[in-house]
């Protein structure tokens, strides 16, 4: 999928400001940004719910403005606000949404059952969503979006307000969908989810992409070092020189009984460092690694927290 100079204005307010993104097939692409950054607006434009004021959107190489039917058949959208009918059973809900994409007869029945099984609601297919927990409703919402087997699935904050168990279930099913060959666009303002799940991430703020790349590329914008603090019982016999010889270690400073090691972020040398302390008969009391995460990236770039 490709977005070029996408713009959306609501009156004078510019919600999405010349946004350009390229998403490769098979990616789990994360859109990370605080509330009101323009994530949902972008998604609504991709799914055709909102008309853009400028720019173009291509899906599988086709402009959605001219191939709207093709685009709709290949997109499954899990909206932020639940889109299910409370007075229809779970099965009927999935059947209804899949039916909108033109599935009929046996195919419709099989696909609907598969989708329910996928989200783990097979045994609840005759129940009504009004009796469901928040997490189950979310899962049903996902089933409705995937029954027609779209190539691109867009999930807009699918884990808002649900229990940790359902959350894990949803995160796992996102991975499974991805393994099955779906490209996924995932928006969230939960940094941990995006960091854990997504192969590539765009940080969005005030309708603009301010940084884009893998988690490692994004953190590398801020710094290429990490700090490792090792607290030991006593540090009288520390051979700083040989500690520095460990690959990646830049500097070593000792403050009382804490040894602060600044090391290159992309090199994983924790094992060797621990080994060093064991070999020298030093007892480790605690160990902390302070590597930059996406939250730090966002904070450093925008000066604000993700969840303000």
């Amino acid at each position, binding site marked *: 999928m490709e977005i070029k100079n996408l713009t959306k204005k609501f009156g004078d307010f510019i919600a999405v400001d010349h946004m350009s993104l390229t998403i490769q097939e098979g990616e789990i692409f994360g859109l990370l940004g605080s509330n009101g950054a323009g994530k949902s607006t972008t998604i609504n434009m991709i799914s055709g719910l909102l008309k853009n004021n400028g720019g173009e959107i291509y899906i599988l190489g086709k402009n959605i403005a001219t191939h709207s039917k093709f685009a709709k058949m290949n997109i499954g959208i899990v909206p932020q606000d639940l889109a299910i009918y409370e007075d229809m059973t779970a099965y009927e809900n999935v059947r209804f949404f899949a039916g909108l994409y033109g599935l009929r007869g046996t195919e419709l029945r099989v696909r609907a059952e598969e989708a329910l099984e996928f989200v783990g609601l097979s045994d609840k297919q005759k129940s009504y969503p009004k009796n469901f927990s928040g997490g189950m409703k979310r899962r049903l919402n996902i089933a409705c979006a995937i029954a027609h087997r779209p190539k691109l699935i867009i999930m807009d904050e699918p884990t808002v307000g649900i229990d940790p168990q359902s959350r894990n279930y949803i995160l796992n099913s996102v991975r499974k969908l991805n393994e099955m060959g779906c490209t996924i666009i995932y928006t969230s303002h939960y940094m941990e989810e995006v960091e854990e799940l997504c192969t590539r991430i765009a940080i969005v703020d005030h309708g603009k992409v301010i940084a884009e790349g893998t988690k490692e590329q994004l953190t590398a914008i801020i710094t*290429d070092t990490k700090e490792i603090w090792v607290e030991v019982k006593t540090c009288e016999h520390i051979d700083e020189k040989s500690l520095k010889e460990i690959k990646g270690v830049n500097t070593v400073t000792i403050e009382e009984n804490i040894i602060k090691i600044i090391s290159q972020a992309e090199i994983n040398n924790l094992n060797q460092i621990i080994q060093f302390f064991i070999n020298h008969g030093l007892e480790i009391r605690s160990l902390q690694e302070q590597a930059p995460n996406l939250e730090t990236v966002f904070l450093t770039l*925008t000066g604000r927290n993700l969840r303000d």
Partner: protein
Amino acid sequence: MEIWIIFSKLSIILFLGISFVQSETSHLGWIIFAVLLYISLNFAMYLVLIEKWKRAIQMVTLLFIFICFWKLNPLFLMLFPMNFFELESFWFVKKWFVLPVSLLPMFLIPGHQADYLLSTLFCFLIYLMTSLYTEKFIQYEHKYDKMRIDLQKLTKNLNENKEYIRQSEYTSRLEERNRISQQIHDSIGHSMTGALIQMEAAKTLMALNQEKAAELLQNATHILKDGIEDIRITLKNMKPPTEQIGLQRLKLMIEEFSIQHQLRVPFVYKGNIDVITPIQWKIIYENITEALTNSLKYSGATEISIKIQVLNKLIRAQVKDNGKGISSGKMVKGLGIIGMEERTASVKGTIIVDGSNGFSVTTLLPITE
């Protein structure tokens, strides 16, 4: 566009011709004459360029149609609607209003009412479409003209600016050359001459008074040493590090701003600012100036803080005030912010404007290697 109206007229004439031949009217000669006259009147109208004349000919045509209708054959009335539409287009904007008027003569030709109705509607549609598209076409033409003129202006501006840049580069180079030659003359030239005189004297004294000659040579060595030191200092002064230029300039501006407007403007910088290139300094400087002016004008702030950070792959310059800010729904991009955006985009950077907690403008520039 006129071609469609002409075609529709032609088709009506064809229709008339066929019905005249079929009905075997008596004075076919007169009728052919009338048709030819009608055609030539219409031609005349399209050929004339003056609006007034066009209208006059159009009225004559209408009159002529009525005479033919009166004296020759009632079917001539069918030519009336299209000419009528063309005439009214000089006065009326609302087209729908003229349709009932053009339908009125329907009652004058009993027996051919259906034909008349059909041809009128047909003419009306053609006419409506033609005028609609003509209007649009003219609009686009205007727009296109405007854009072309804008483009010309911009190109001219660009060329002028390029010329200006070239000129100022040349001027500053001349100034610099002047300064250097002055310096060489003042210090190095003098010491060289001094040393030379001493050495000449030593040469003459060599045979007579060796001790004195050695002293003179020692003097010359001293003078030359000082001269070399001078050259070193001059060269060093000539090549100031870029970060000094950028940073000093910025500090100076901030200080002046702070004093002039009685505001606190704390300024901090972090990281290795050596990596900021002159062009990046220029953009940072301009964006900070712009943001300071904005804050001063709109925020009612008492403090505006400026922070430049050099991160691993990014330079971040933030101007943030403690004023009233703007809620994000109300933010309207003015020329200033658009200017900053364009400037920053030219070096692949981004601007973040945020009004949620005071007002802040953040410039992000990638570090070029």
